[in-house]
Structures are given as structure tokens and as C-alpha cells.
């Protein structure tokens, strides 16, 4: 099912609006991640789609139907909450079957469907237990099964992984991906963690400050950010941002010529040891950190502090470095990217 949000405005009393004239479209049958820092309005957006919040203005459209005024319970949505919200007084079996019971599905048919869903999320051996007896990961699987029980047109996942530890997160990402592929249900995943989005989603919508910053695949967002906000949000370590004025003239020849550019973004892997005689920059090594496969090198240069992941472990205190043009993006004073992210430029 395709979800369209048109001109949505939402504000609480006596507070600046969270969303103003917001438009977006969630494509049918895909897994879309809403990615943004906390306070970006992504959970608000999800609650609007779910019908838990009503917009002050604008329309929410499912396929061709306007559902702006429709109750949550008639929107046929499955939702998984951050802290699961499993009913503590019901067994796993009855939790998964709850939406079916509400729809007056007979017990036999209900338990049949529960068994299928339990199989899908691999909790078959936990069916008679109560939620409190399960681990966080198992509870989340049950919550997903419950959300899928009534074969919703839309599956909403509100920060489903944020209360799990790293190993479980990794595992549950796989589960979510696989379930979405198997069922083909249109899915929206809200997360503040770019790794969740990058690993799971077909397309990522980056939200910040109540605005849709960019829509695209993980690769698009990283290589062609439309603005500085996206560039700074996507990618770890954070993109190095230096004022263009500090850049020595000889480097400028490496970059496309524009007049509007004021800021240069340099990805960490674009800062390398200098091999040629030209385009050299002297850098003082402040610290080197081994992070698994990568080595992060913190440098102090004439451009300000920089972080590189392309410098091998070294004992030298001073290095000559250079910049690879492929990892560099120019930004205008208003934050728009000028080269690389050419969509919005």
C-alpha cells in the first residue's frame, strides 16, 4: 500500500510546530526507514500515519483513500512499539492472536494463524509463556508477530531495536528484513541509528528539524548528500567539515570550481598519506584508535582538526597528508551541496 502525506502540519499548544507543510510518499511493498536524530519529528510522523496523532492540517492518503479522519483501529495497521507493549496478562499465544480475537476470529482459526506467525518469527517454543519470561529479543519477535497477525496493509516499527544489545540488534535486523521480504508488507521503520537503516531499508528518508532532508539508498546518502545536515548525519566517523577559505590554493585545483561554495566536507577515507610532491599538508597526529578493522587517526592541521580512516598505524608524530577528490563535497553557505549531491543544487 502506498502512503502519501500531503501538506501535513502538526503543532502542540503553545509550541513551535513539529511539522510544517510536510510532504512525503512511502512506496508500496518496500521497507522505508525514517532516519533522523531525536527530535527530528520521525516518531511524530509514524504516529500520524498510525492515527495516534491527528494533523492540524493536511491529508494522509493510503493508496487513493483519504484516512486523515479515520480511527487507528480502522486503518488496518500493524505497529511495533519501542518497548514492545506486549499485554502482560496474556500468554505469547494470546498476545499474537489478540488482533484476531478483536476481529472475532474463531479460536481454532486464530491459533492456526498464531502458529504460522510464531514459525515466521521463530518463537514456536515460547507460545505458552508470559511476556515477562522472555528476553528482549524474543519479546520483540512476538511484538512483530502480533503486528502482522491481521495481515495489515502497513507495518510500522517505532525504534524496534533501540532497547536491544548489539548482538540482538544485528540478529533482529535480519529478522525484520527477512519478514518484510517474505510478507511483502509495506513497512516503515523509525530509527535514529543509521546502521539499522543502512542494513535493513530499501530506501531511507532522512529527517531533521521537521523537514525531509533527502530520500535515497544508503549509497546515495553517503556519496551524494543533498546538504550538510545529511552529510554530517550519515557516515561514521562524521564527515570532516572545513571552511573553504582555509584550504591552500593548490588544493582548490583538485575540486570543481564554483563560486558559491563556502564549506568543504571531507570523508575520513579521503584523507590519505601524501605520496606525490604536490598537494601536501602537514598534520600532527593527536591520537590513533583501533576500531575493529579500521584505524581512526585524529589529526591537527592548518584546516583544523581532521579524522582519517585511511592512515595506517604509525609512530610518527607529524605526517604529510593529502585529500582524495572523490571523498570531497562542496557546500554553499545555506548548507546545500554543490557538487556530488546535484539533485537539489
Amino acid at each position: 500500500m502506498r502512503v502519501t502525506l500531503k501538506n501535513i502540519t502538526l503543532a502542540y499548544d503553545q509550541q513551535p510546530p513539529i511539522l510544517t507543510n510536510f510532504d512525503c510518499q512511502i512506496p508500496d511493498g518496500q521497507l522505508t526507514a525514517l532516519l533522523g536524530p531525536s527530535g527530528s519529528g520521525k516518531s511524530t510522523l509514524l504516529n500520524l500515519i498510525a492515527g495516534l496523532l491527528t494533523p492540524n492540517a493536511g491529508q494522509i492518503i493510503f493508496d487513493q483513500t483519504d484516512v486523515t479522519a479515520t480511527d487507528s483501529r480502522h486503518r488496518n495497521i500493524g505497529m511495533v512499539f519501542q518497548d514492545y507493549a506486549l499485554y502482560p496478562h496474556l500468554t505469547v499465544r494470546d498476545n499474537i492472536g489478540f488482533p484476531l480475537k478483536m476481529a472475532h476470529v474463531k479460536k481454532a482459526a486464530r491459533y492456526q494463524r498464531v502458529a504460522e506467525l510464531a514459525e515466521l518469527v521463530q518463537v514456536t517454543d515460547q507460545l505458552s509463556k508470559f511476556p515477562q519470561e522472555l528476553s528482549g529479543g524474543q519479546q520483540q519477535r512476538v511484538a512483530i508477530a502480533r503486528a502482522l497477525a491481521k495481515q495489515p496493509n502497513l507495518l510500522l516499527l517505532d525504534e524496534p531495536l533501540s532497547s536491544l544489545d548489539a548482538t540482538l540488534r544485528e540478529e533482529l535486523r535480519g529478522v525484520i528484513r527477512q519478514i518484510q521480504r517474505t510478507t511483502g508488507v509495506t513497512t516503515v521503520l523509525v530509527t535514529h541509528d543509521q546502521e539499522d537503516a543502512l542494513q535493513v531499508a530499501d530506501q531511507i528518508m532522512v529527517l531533521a528539524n521537521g523537514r525531509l532532508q533527502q530520500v535515497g539508498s544508503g549509497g546515495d546518502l553517503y556519496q551524494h548528500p543533498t546538504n550538510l545536515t545529511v552529510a554530517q548525519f550519515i557516515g561514521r566517523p562524521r564527515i570532516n567539515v572545513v571552511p573553504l577559505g582555509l584550504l591552500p590554493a593548490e588544493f582548490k585545483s583538485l575540486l570543481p570550481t564554483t563560486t558559491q561554495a563556502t564549506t568543504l566536507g571531507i570523508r575520513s577515507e579521503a584523507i590519505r598519506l601524501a605520496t606525490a610532491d604536490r598537494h601536501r599538508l602537514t598534520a600532527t597526529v593527536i591520537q590513533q584508535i583501533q576500531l575493529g578493522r579500521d584505524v581512526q587517526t585524529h589529526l591537527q592541521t592548518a584546516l583544523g582538526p581532521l579524522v582519517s580512516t585511511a592512515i595506517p598505524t604509525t609512530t610518527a608524530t607529524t605526517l604529510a597528508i593529502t585529500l582524495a577528490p572523490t571523498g570531497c563535497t562542496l557546500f554553499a553557505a545555506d548548507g546545500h551541496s554543490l557538487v556530488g549531491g546535484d539533485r537539489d543544487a
Partner: protein
Amino acid sequence: MLNQTPTAKSTLKALLYLAPLLVLTAVFILWPLLNAFLISLYTKYNYYTGHVGALGWANFGYLWHDPTFHLAARNTLLLVLVAVPVSVALALAIALGINQIPRLADFFQTVYFLPFVTSTVAIGLVWNWIFRLDGGLLNRLLSLLHIPAIDWLNDPHYSLGALIIVCIWQGLGFNIILFLAGLNHIDHRFARAAELDGASDWQRFTNVTWPLLMPITILVIVNTSITNFKVFDQVYALFHGAAGPGDADLTLMVYLYQKFYVENQMAVAAACGVVLFLCVSVLTLITVGYFHHRQRQLGGR
């Protein structure tokens, strides 16, 4: 220290700190309780000289054959069986209503709670006026519905009903507060999840709110039952010290009072007290059992 294990010395030290309270509890609670049990077993007992003829079950035998006790037991049971369900249902309905109107919640809580903190004597006076045959508020309301006036306090057919109304009214406020606390304790997420799961308001109440409210409901039921088993002051205030017309409002506590202060049958009064104690204990044990079961089910702890 977290890993400290109790030793004889540390236990003794703890007891020393607790001694003042333990002594008070022993003197004013445990000893009278034990004494009441003992007195209930005294036969041919002279309260003033402290002379005990023999020990035995004769007092309980007396109760077993005493028609007045039967009447008291029947009245008390009727009171509990009518007042408790009505009071609990009414309190739940009002609490659910108040929960929907957060703005006026404080006002209504206060209004409903007032009877609980008002002196029973004052309440007795007010209800005496409400129940009056001519010009009483209740009869005026009934006359609006073209129902003939009822002599609530002097007609033995209605006087127990009048007592039940007062008991329900007086206990309502406290029960509402308990239910409100229980409702606030239920996470709003469950309501939201249930709505998305397609539950109508009524389904949400029966499938989510009500089961999650069960512990507080049990608490309210038991608390109300115990209170209503022990009804005395309402009778005293409503009927000016008597047990209603033709003993129609004779409850176990009133029976106990009459035996003790009026008829000077201390041992029989004590035996009646023991019977009351057993009734309340059984109720309490059932509750404790339920909570244990519930906790095992919910927490696995």
C-alpha cells in the same frame, strides 16, 4: 554491606532497635487478641471477679443455637453480598468516568472522598434526614417518580436497605481512589496497542483494562468486604443506638456490642468476635493466595 549474613549478634541488635514498637504491638494488639480467643473458650465466666469455671466450646454452641445470632449473621451476609458488588461496580464505573475528564478529576475525587473522612455520627444525622418519612429527600425524589413514600428507618422491610445504601455511599470514595490509582498504574501503551490491534472501546476495557486492573479490584473487593463485615457505627448512628426496627439491622458487630455492653455476656461476645475474625481471615487468605498465583503467572518470580 550487601553480602552480610545475619548473625545472632546482629539479630539481637536489630531486636533491640525494634523493641519499643514490638512491646507496644504485643501489649495492645497481640495480647488483647489472644485474650479474646481465650475468653471465647471460658464457660461459667465471671468477668468482674475473673473467675473461670471451665474451658470449652459452649459459647460457640450457644451461638450455633441462638436465633438472634442467626439473624445477625444473615443480615451481615446480606449486607456484604449486596453492598460489596454494588459498591465495587459503582466505584469502578465512576473511576473510569473520572479518568476520562482529567480537568475535573481532582474536584470529583475530593467530592467522592468526603464521606470517607466525615464522622459517621454526622453522616448518620444527614441520612436520618434524607430517609425521613415526611419531607425526607429520598421520599421526595420517589414521589416525583410517583412511588409512595417509604418509612425507611422504621419499616423492618426497608431498614436494612437503608443501611446498605449508607454503607455503599460511605465506602465509595475510598474505592474510587483505589481504582483511579490502579487505572493510572496501567501503561497508556497498552491502550494504544489495543486500539491499533483493532479493539473497540468495550473490547479494550474487557480484554486489557479489566484484566490489568484485577489486582486492585481484588484489593477493593476484600477491603470493602472486611469493612462491611464490621459495620457497626452506621447502625448506631442511623438507629440511635438500636439495631433497627425489629432487629432488622442487627449485624454481627452490633450483636457483639449488645452481648458485651448490654447483656454482659463477655464470653459469648468474644466467641462472636472469633467467628467474625475467621470470616475475615478466610477472605484475606483467599486474596493472598490469588496474589501469589498472579505474581507467579506474571513475573515468574
